[in-house]
């Protein structure tokens, strides 16, 4: 179990996809206003198991397969949300956001502000993110920074089943648009094996995890590693081997990018003085720079050394040696930790 969270005393462990679906099903039972739209989310149960089992309970009316028309159905979710419903729209891969982007960033994200607060858009946009299985440039991105950069969307990135469920409850209940990005490699899909870690104990009862509260996934005194999604687990693995060398790493899992929990990050850095930010998104103008800037602005004096580990600014290549080169792995994190320690 993670620090600061309790598991309600359960010993029932779930994959991340099961935990997500459990929250969605609960909210759908509670309110007829909640419904799910996406491609292959009905009979197929979602390519990445994001809706597995929902069709059986709720039928095609509320678990809706939609045409390959991202602009139309994401926009329809915006309209239905403004009409008072609580739709969930799924982008099968986040990489396809380009097709429906206007509805996402000019409508969904801005209507509340442009209306002076008169309109709200209580919808969730879910999307599968991430690489590590050689699906190449159009099917492997995370695009965390892109969504977080554009104002008006709350952005959620769970790394464990426990977090996935609580964050999903919160996402559906939130009165604003929430972009919920789940990493394919964490879902616990048979054909895409997950690392140890995302499968956690999950209480049967509902619970929410508030947005803007990062989670210390590992306590440590020497170096702060701030990360999210799949790389929480890669960082934990790195931390275990670093511990053998007597290096004590603290791991901060952001869990939400908007809002960003700068307080937890700064508190950790004020303790360790050394910061490594690890991200599976592109390096420039992204999560790594934002986190580092947020520390530097108010806590520059605490910061002895800093490193970032992220995807270099290249589209994600297909071939295994090339993809392995660009997606940060455990060794890259270990190297960065050594580097901030030797920087004195």
């Amino acid at each position: 179990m993670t620090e600061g969270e309790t598991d309600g005393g359960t010993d029932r462990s779930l994959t991340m996809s099961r935990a997500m679906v459990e929250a969605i099903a609960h909210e759908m039972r509670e309110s007829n206003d909640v419904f799910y739209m996406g491609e292959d989310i009905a009979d197929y149960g979602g390519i990445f198991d994001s809706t597995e089992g929902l069709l059986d309970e709720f039928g095609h009316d509320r678990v809706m397969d939609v045409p390959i028309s991202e602009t139309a159905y994401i926009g329809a979710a915006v309209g239905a949300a403004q009409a008072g419903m609580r739709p969930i729209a799924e982008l099968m891969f986040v990489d396809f956001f380009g097709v429906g982007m206007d509805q996402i960033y000019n409508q969904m994200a801005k209507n509340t502000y442009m209306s002076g607060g008169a309109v709200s858009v209580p919808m969730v946009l879910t999307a599968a993110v991430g690489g590590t299985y050689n699906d190449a440039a159009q099917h492997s991105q995370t695009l965390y920074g892109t969504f977080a950069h554009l104002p008006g969307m709350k952005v959620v990135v769970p790394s464990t089943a426990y977090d996935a469920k609580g964050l999903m409850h919160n996402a559906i209940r939130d009165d604003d648009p929430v972009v919920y990005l789940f990493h394919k490699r964490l879902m616990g899909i048979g054909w895409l094996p997950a690392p140890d870690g995302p499968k956690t104990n999950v209480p049967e009862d509902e619970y929410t995890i508030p947005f803007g509260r990062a989670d210390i996934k590992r306590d440590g005194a020497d170096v702060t590693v701030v990360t999210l999604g799949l790389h929480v687990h890669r960082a934990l693995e790195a931390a275990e081997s670093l511990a053998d060398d007597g290096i004590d790493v603290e791991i901060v899992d952001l869990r939400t990018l908007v809002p960003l929990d700068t307080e937890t990050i700064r508190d950790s850095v004020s303790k360790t003085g050394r910061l490594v930010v690890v991200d599976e998104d592109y390096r420039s103008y992204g999560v790594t720079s934002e986190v580092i800037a947020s520390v530097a602005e108010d806590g520059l004096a605490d910061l002895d050394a800093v490193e970032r580990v992220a995807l270099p600014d290249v589209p994600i290549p297909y071939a295994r040696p090339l993809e392995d080169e660009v997606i940060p792995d455990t060794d890259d994190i270990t190297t960065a930790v050594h580097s901030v320690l030797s920087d004195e």
Partner: protein
Amino acid sequence: MSMVAVSELQEMYEHMVAARHYEERLQEEYLEGKQPAFDISAGPIPGELHLAAGHEASGAGVCQHLRDDDTVTAPHRPHHVAIAKGVDLERMTAEIFGRETGLSKGKGGHMHLFDPDVNFACSGIIAEGCPPAVGAGLAAKKRNTDSVAVAFLGEGAIDQGAFLESLNLASVQNLPVVFVIEDNDWAISMPKDRVTDVENGAQRAEGFDLPGTRVDSDDAVAVYDAAGEAIGRARDRNGPSLLEVQVHRRMGHFMGDAEGYRSDEDQEAAAQRDSIDRLAGTLRAHDVGGEALEELRERARNRVEGAIEWAKDQPEPDPESAYEDVFSTPPSGVTETAPSAADSGGEDR
């Protein structure tokens, strides 16, 4: 009755047999290393793999009319079209195996094959090959050449804005573009009638004022005839056309798709409608004997085997090469766009 020459039928047959054999062999290679448990990232071919077994008549019947200077854009299921268009099979295969000598040096993979020598490209984003095909048609018009562009898409893609906007742009500009819808009844797990308002995708043409035709059978000769008319119209500068071709999906959407959503009868029906057998029958009716057919098949299979063998022998790319090719002119800090002071000398601007 079709006026197609027997030699053309033979070429089409060879392409179709090669395309089918290619997919069957890739399936084998793909699954190797994914046993006993299917792990998408394992084995000699990682990532998603969308095979086109059952689509052969469309690729062969359309591309039979095309020259190297004609442009083709294909979707995520591109191999049969690439083979019929004359894409370098060895380098395409090396790309799929992620090798250094692949078409894209291992950067693209099976959904992102580019062979500029024969003006072939494909994209994994549904319907997004349509606008670039319109652009190729626009270039042909502006340069006053008689080349044409063909965009292939699935029946699931006809609900996308990129397709519908492209129909309009091609039509209003009277561009030499042919849109070919391959209707295999399914968009992954979604049957056509669940998501699309019309049964006949060619009807989309009506609203955009261009001719639309549907070929209902898995008949390569009928595809050849209908495509001949559409491509001829484009080459003669008479504007775009829309063609829908009934094909069928003999394998899952992608490798590893258990097709739990699809009835056994539907799968069996797809397996029955074999356009390759059908074309063999047509060839026999044109007095091409069993031995001649076997020779064509042999040649097609050998070509495929040769390409796979060659590809598997190729080196993997150097990891450092991942950083190359983002731009065709690598940025070196500041790019000079204005002539230097010395060059512009006393010239008045």
